[in-house]
């Protein structure tokens, strides 16, 4: 089935920070060709591996992030490899890379050089801090970016160091953000014919997780600190019998009805003390409560949640319109009835690995051109013959290049 970006060709080269952008473009229907060094990108084809033993063809993060792409190997440090890259780019709409423009200019295959022959080319660089400025040459992956982007300082327990998400949220924000820039450049090209450079800074993308908090600070002068499972003064994370749920004791008109519904639920279970049942919620403001009163209030809710399972609480929350949600792990996400009903997951067959693996199939349902995973991630150099053959290279020439280590 055709996607919205049918007919758009993308050359993706570089590390994991750009992989999600390439996947999004591929799942939208673009023809994405991932360029790896000969032997494969061993850093992106990282652990864990299917079956456990180190084997770049069995890297699970690679399989997850490179769906809907074809794969070729090219040695960009060799003259012949660079020449083939330039020929691939000449037939592409977009080059997506993660080393920055200068690294390609130094190889003689930079944006300015390639666009001389191909004015419509769009060139997207995803780098830790962007292409200019005093930190332009600084290195950093997810942890460094989450720190420099301001999120880590406010994430975690007050008695421990700042902490990050175990999977790379810096790359998750940069992925769709890079695609926004690329699609704008493609739209602009329709008008004037010329492509342009899309310069993505992982740090600036990461700042967006703060949802304008720094700008608010300029008005309020309140510095947010790490507060563990709390948000402001009140607890957000609560232990249950088998895991944790989020639930806020925050006030405000949008939230008070759900607090009343929770007390009703507790009362039906015989776990709402008299003072709680009689509490006046109309003027409830947790910031105005005495420390002791807040402690008593939280204690009553904590005792109730601790006696129940996540699923039980969530099912009642759905019925009673309570703002409570389970802190799901992978199994709970994959089994989630709402996500199942919407067919979020697609099973891809990997006969050569003896596996069938579920992937999220789309980030949105779109009609008439649906977003979906169109193929599994490529093996190392899987499409060399197909892609380079289309440039006019014959079988013998390809074999020669492979022997020379260019492919």
């Amino acid at each position: 089935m055709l996607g919205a970006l049918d007919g758009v060709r993308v050359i993706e080269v570089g590390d994991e920070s750009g992989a999600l952008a390439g996947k999004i473009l591929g799942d939208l229907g673009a023809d994405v060709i991932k360029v790896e060094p000969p032997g494969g990108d061993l850093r992106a084809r990282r652990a864990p591996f299917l079956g456990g033993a180190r084997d770049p063809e069995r890297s699970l993060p690679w399989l997850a992030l490179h769906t809907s792409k074809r794969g070729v190997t090219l040695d960009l440090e060799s003259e012949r490899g660079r020449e083939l890259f330039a020929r691939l780019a000449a037939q592409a709409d977009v080059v997506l890379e993660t080393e920055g423009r200068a690294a390609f200019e130094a190889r003689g295959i930079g944006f300015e050089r390639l666009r001389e022959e191909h004015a419509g080319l769009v060139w997207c660089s995803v780098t830790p801090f962007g292409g200019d400025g005093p930190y332009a040459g600084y290195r950093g992956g997810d942890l460094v970016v989450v720190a420099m982007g301001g999120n880590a300082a406010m994430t975690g327990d007050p008695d421990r160091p700042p902490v990050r998400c175990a999977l790379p949220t810096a790359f998750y924000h940069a992925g769709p953000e890079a695609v926004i820039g690329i699609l704008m450049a493609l739209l602009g090209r329709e008008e004037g014919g010329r492509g342009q450079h899309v310069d993505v800074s992982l740090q600036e993308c990461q700042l967006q997780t703060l949802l304008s908090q720094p700008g608010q600070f300029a008005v309020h002068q309140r510095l947010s600190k790490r507060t563990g499972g709390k948000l402001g003064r009140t607890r957000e994370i609560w232990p249950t019998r088998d895991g944790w749920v989020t639930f806020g004791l925050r006030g405000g008109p949008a939230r008070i009805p759900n607090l009343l519904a929770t007390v009703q639920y507790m009362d039906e279970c015989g776990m709402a003390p008299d003072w709680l049942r009689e509490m006046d919620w109309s003027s409830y403001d947790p910031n105005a409560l005495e420390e002791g009163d807040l402690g008593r209030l939280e204690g009553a809710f904590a005792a109730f949640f601790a006696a129940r399972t996540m699923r039980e609480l969530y099912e009642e929350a759905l019925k009673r319109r309570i703002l409570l949600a389970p802190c799901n792990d992978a199994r709970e996400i994959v089994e989630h009835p709402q996500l199942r009903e919407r067919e979020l997951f697609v099973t891809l067959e990997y006969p050569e690995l003896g596996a069938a693996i579920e992937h999220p199939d789309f980030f949105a349902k779109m009609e008439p051109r649906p977003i979906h995973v169109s193929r599994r991630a490529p093996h190392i150099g899987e499409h060399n013959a197909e892609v380079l053959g289309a440039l006019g290279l014959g079988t013998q020439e390809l074999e020669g290049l492979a022997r020379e280590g260019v492919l």
Partner: protein
Amino acid sequence: MILAGVKVLELGAGAAGPVATKVLAEHGARVVRIESAGRPDFLRTLFLRQNEHGLDGSPMYVLLNPNKECVSLNLKKPEAVDLVKRLVEWADVVCENFAPGVMGRFGLDAALLREIKPQLIVASGCLFGQTGPQRSYPGFGGQGSAIAGFNHLTGWPDREPHGPYATITDSLSPRYVAVAILAALLHRRRTGEGSTIDLSQIESGVYSLSELVVRWSAAGDSVGRAGNSSETCAPHGVYPCAGDDRWIAIAVEDDEQWSALVGEMRSPELADLDRFAERAAVDTRLSAWTAEQEPHALMARLQGAGVPAGVVQNTRDLLDDPQLAQRGHWVPLRHHPLGEMPFERAGFRLSESAGGLERPGPNLGEHNRAVLGGILGLSDAEIDRLIADEVVS
């Protein structure tokens, strides 16, 4: 501006809705928000108790809605709904993030809007999507982040989950809404066809976490909280620096970086250590070394040696960050009545179509006359009558 001429009509509330169109407005799209005084956007009400400016006094609202216009309509009145339909005829894109069914109750569901204007792009971006048994679950971003898995993944293995600061599905999902809208615009330029986009904030979070799903499905590997440790890098952590609550992140990706770090530490005896097996010992030595140093100077020194390192920047650091300043990330704009605030650019720059932020988020109904008069051609007298009849309110 690259999106000049693109017309967007926005309905909804909170952070996820407006963030999706903020980047479009930054690049020249004309974005008109439909709001009402009777049921205000809850982002406008967040600071009601702390300011004297009422619904125009919320910094978060103002900061997340720059370059946009606001018209206030009471959608309980049929005449107001008719005005929205006329604006739909004007628009290229309708973007909304109400709970499922709300647009339908106004008589404005996606199918009907596409009937009014088949080449329209309608994007809906609620928590769980427009279909399915739990679509009406009334959550916010905090619930979305937990359901999508981010809380379970964030924190220390021996402690409760946290979730990254703020609500990550509110910052992540709107980027996907913008992606889908732009892809649909490109498709429409080529074919003339409109699109209907049904995005679930939770599903776009799970899509981002494809690695989590694949690892579980392929190998029964349930990724959990891991502090700051990494499966592929060591040392990899956040280490104390001189000062109150000052820290630096250091992530060593290979042996070359490790020997550079050991050289900076002047601890050659560490070079032969198995840095993966002896993580704890390495972290102790590293912490003792970083603890006496000023974080930004240490970052410059380590980066100079080729070691990935970054200060755990607090809010003040961000506002003073020379890199962000050079990039023009902060754009000071004056809002009435809140005064000057630093607004934020998107995460990318286009080399030949700079875009920019020119106006703070609108006050409620600020553009009633510009929109109803300027776009729909209503006379001042007609607009006065609509105000008197509380259609505009």
